[in-house]
Structure formats: C-alpha cells, structure tokens
C-alpha cells in the first residue's frame, strides 16, 4: 500500500510542479504581451541588461564548448564512416547533428548552468531578504518586475546563441575535415550547406525557444519557492539546475518525436 501511496504522492507533486510552472509562465507571458496595452510597459532596459548577461556574456564559454563538440562529432562520425570509405559524409553528419540536436541542447545546458541557476539564486536571495515582499508592498508586481525581462531576454537570446553554437560546431567539424579527411575549408563549408535543409535549422531554433521558456520558468519558480534561510537558496539553485536539465530533455524528446512524425 505504501508503495502505491508514494507513487500517488509523487504524481500529484509532479502535476502540482508543472501547474506552478505553467501559472508562472502564463502570468509572465500575459504581462509581456498584454501588459503594455494596459499601462504596464515591459522595462526594456532591464530586459537588455538580462540579454547581455544571458547572451553576450555566455559567448566565450559556449563557443569553446560547441567548437569542441563539433570536433568530437566529426571524430566519432569518422570512426564509423571510415569503415565504408565514406569520410566525405562527415561534414553532413556534423551539420545535421549540430543544428537539429546538439546545438540547441548544448546551448541550453550552458545557459542552465550560467543563467537558470543565477535566476533561482537571485530571486531566492530576494525572498530571504524580504525584497520580493518589498516589491509587493510598493505595488510593484514581482513577476512583472523580475520574471518578464528574463523571459524576454531568454526567448530572444537562446535562438541567437543556438545559431552561433551551430556555426561553431560546424567550424569544429571543419578542423577535422581539413586535417583528417582531405577537405578544403571551402569544400567543407560547401558540403555542410549541401547537407543542411532549412527545416533542420528551423526545428533546432524552435526547440531553443522552448528551452528558453523552460529554463526561465524553472529558475524563477524555484527562486520564488525559496523558504527562509541561506541554505534554502542553495537548495533552490540546485533543484533549478537539476529540474531544468530534466525538463529540457523531456521537451527535447517531445518536440523531436513531433518533428519526426510531421516530416515522415
């Protein structure tokens, strides 16, 4: 009995969590889209500030990681392709895996580590120091003030970062292509362009927008769930990261299966 009891409790907890996320996302979306028409403009300067922190400042680490991932993909692909004497397909393999899957995913992972955790820590600390209460008593909606700029920044910046990650991945692949598979740089890029379909890039970008929404929602939600005390901030930051990675993978699975079925 206790076994079923715990399954039931877990399921209810899971639904409540997703419900909480959906409510927060709904409020933030409402305040972003409808709010400006009701005299509640989005603070563009705050959104720009967030976009800098989420996007521009992530470029060095994201470039390095995706460059190496591209190179690794090429090496791993070549290991198998070499058996068939089909090394010229390395370029296409790297391009498709990067744009459809690893570009958006690696970007999401980097952004979770840098920004998802930061959102939870920032809002969590503000909960502990009563700053969120202070906003409420000043008649400033905490969701509008804290969450909306983050949503806007993430939904715009993640596709941009993903595009850059795709490009860096291809560049990483090209290093192997030139040194290990007798491509010229121009020839490698040409092979990449020939292999890619528009929908490969677009499906990747659609996923990245979704990832941006999920990461912001989880980071901010965990932040608002923070109780009293400094150790609570640590707890929310940890669960923001773990939960974001989990949900990003789930969303990835759902959308990848959806795209697969749609394109059959």
């Amino acid at each position, binding site marked *: 009995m206790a076994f079923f009891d715990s399954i039931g409790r877990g399921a209810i907890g899971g639904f409540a969590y997703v419900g909480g996320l959906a409510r927060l996302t709904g409020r933030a979306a409402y305040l972003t889209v409808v709010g400006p028409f009701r005299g509640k403009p989005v603070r563009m300067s705050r959104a720009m500030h967030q976009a800098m922190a989420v996007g521009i400042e992530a470029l060095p680490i994201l470039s390095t990681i995706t460059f190496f991932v591209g190179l690794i993909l090429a090496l791993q692909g070549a290991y198998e392709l070499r058996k068939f004497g089909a090394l010229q397909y390395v370029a296409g393999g790297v391009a498709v895996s990067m744009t459809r899957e690893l570009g958006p995913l690696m970007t999401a992972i980097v952004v979770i580590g840098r920004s998802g955790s930061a959102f939870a820590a920032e809002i969590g600390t503000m909960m502990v120091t009563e700053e969120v209460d202070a906003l*409420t008593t000043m*008649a400033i909606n905490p969701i509008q003030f804290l969450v909306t700029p983050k949503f806007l920044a993430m939904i715009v910046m993640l596709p941009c970062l993903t595009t850059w990650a795709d490009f860096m991945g291809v560049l990483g692949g090209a290093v192997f292509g030139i040194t290990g598979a007798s491509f010229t740089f121009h020839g490698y890029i040409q092979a990449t362009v020939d292999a890619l379909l528009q929908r490969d890039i677009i499906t990747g970008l659609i996923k990245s927008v979704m990832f941006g929404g999920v990461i912001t929602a989880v980071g901010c939600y965990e932040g608002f769930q923070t109780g009293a005390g400094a150790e609570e901030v640590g707890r929310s930051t940890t669960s923001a990261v773990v939960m974001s990675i989990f949900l990003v993978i789930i969303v990835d699975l759902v959308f990848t299966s959806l795209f697969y079925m749609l394109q059959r």
Partner: protein
Amino acid sequence: MSQPPADDVILSVRDLRVRYGEREILHGISFDVKKAETLVIMGGSGCGKSTLLRTLVGLQRPSSGEIWIRGRETSSLSHEELDETRKKMGLSFQGGALFGSMTVGQNVALPLQEHTELEDTTIQIIMRLKLEQVGLAGFENYNPSQLSGGMKKRAAVARAMAMDPEILFFDEPSAGLDPIIAAGIDSLILKLQKAFRMTIIVVTHELASAFLIADRMLMIDKGNILAFGTKEEMQDCKIPRVRQFLDRVPEPEVAEEMDYLQMLTGENPRPL
C-alpha cells in the same frame, strides 16, 4: 459587510482571523487607528504581531474578518485593486529589504519611476529630498551593502516615504541596533509624525522605544488583543500578562505540574 468606519479613522480592523494552514495565528482582532496618530503594536516573539503587520499591508490574506483602509474594505480586493491602496502605504522592513542590485538612490526612486509620470530630473530631486529627511543626504550613490544597519533602516524609511504615504508601517525599527542608533530611529519616527502628520504603525518589542513614540499601544498575546489604550493607560494596566511584559518578568519555568508531565510523556491534549 458592515458599515465603513468614521471619517477620522484611517485604518480599522474587525474580527480579523489569520491562519497558516491548520494553525490559526490571529483569533479575531478588532481595533481602530485614527488619522495622524502613532500606534505601537507590542507583544512577545511569536505572538502574531508580525503576522498582523503582514496582513495589514496585504502580504498575507486574512481567513476572515475585515480590514478598512482609508474608507475601503481591502481584504476582499484583488491584487490589482489592492495596489491602489498600497501606493498610499509605506513599509519599512526589519532588515531594510533594500534591493542589493541597485544604489540607495535607485531604491528610493524606484516607486516613483514605476508609479508616476514624473520627469527623471524631478524624481532625482524628490529622491534627494527623501534621503535628506532621513539624514542620508549624499548617500544616493552608495550600494546598500556599504551602509551600516542603522543607515539601511533610514534608507528603507526614505524608500517607504517616496510616494508620500498616508500610513507608514515599521517592522521592528530598532531591532539589532545599538541604543544610540535606535534612539536616532525613534526621533526620526517622531519627527516624521510631527512634520508630515502621517499615521504611523510600529511593530516592536522594545519597551523604551514604544513608550517614547506611541500615542496609543496595542498589546497582543497568543493571537488575541490583551490590552489597547494610551501609554498612560498601559502603564497603569493591571492585567497580569501585561504587567509581566512591561516589568520584564520571565516565564515561570514550570506552569503546572500536569502540563509538565504531559510534556514529558509527549501527550499534548491542549492544541496550540
């Protein structure tokens, strides 16, 4: 809903009950606050005075009862409707609750930027004026982390006053401050009340400070009102629990032998 309170009553609480889940914290509290008076809410730790404050400013929803603020019943209002009332109230938090990512000046200017159409230069002037009123002139470019405890509280008062509120709330204004700084905060409260005819509601358990600033005092114990009156009435009060608080007598170690036995055996027939 009952009748609105008289014109000179700015805040009226009627049979207010607040519960967190199963536990009821306030068991039906009623009192009136007149315009331009200073009310001090006193009580021991965990008596429900902080909950009362949070409920008055709308951070906590009452489970039943009415709260009339400036002639409007607020406990049934939505968050958006409540915001209009909130703009006329200011709350100075115990720890200051200044936004760490902004300077002191930006903290004070924030409510004005959010709620008014004023020019930025005007907002800057108001901000400096408010900081000057709390004795922090010239500190607008400091970060909150660079301020001492007393200065943080003063900055929080300046922020709470930014919108020229009619009611100013203080949560434990002198907690954690040395006696000289605490006295400075007391005289600031007195000055604000005299200069701006503000209604001031202070939650504290510092006796000296309470008797200095209060017009009237409200004492809460275990979620009920124990005594309510002027400070003279309070001083002459004969209620044992009030006397114990005012004369600083500690709780007796063992109230009753049976209670003690029950505590030891883990049986607790008396619900909290």
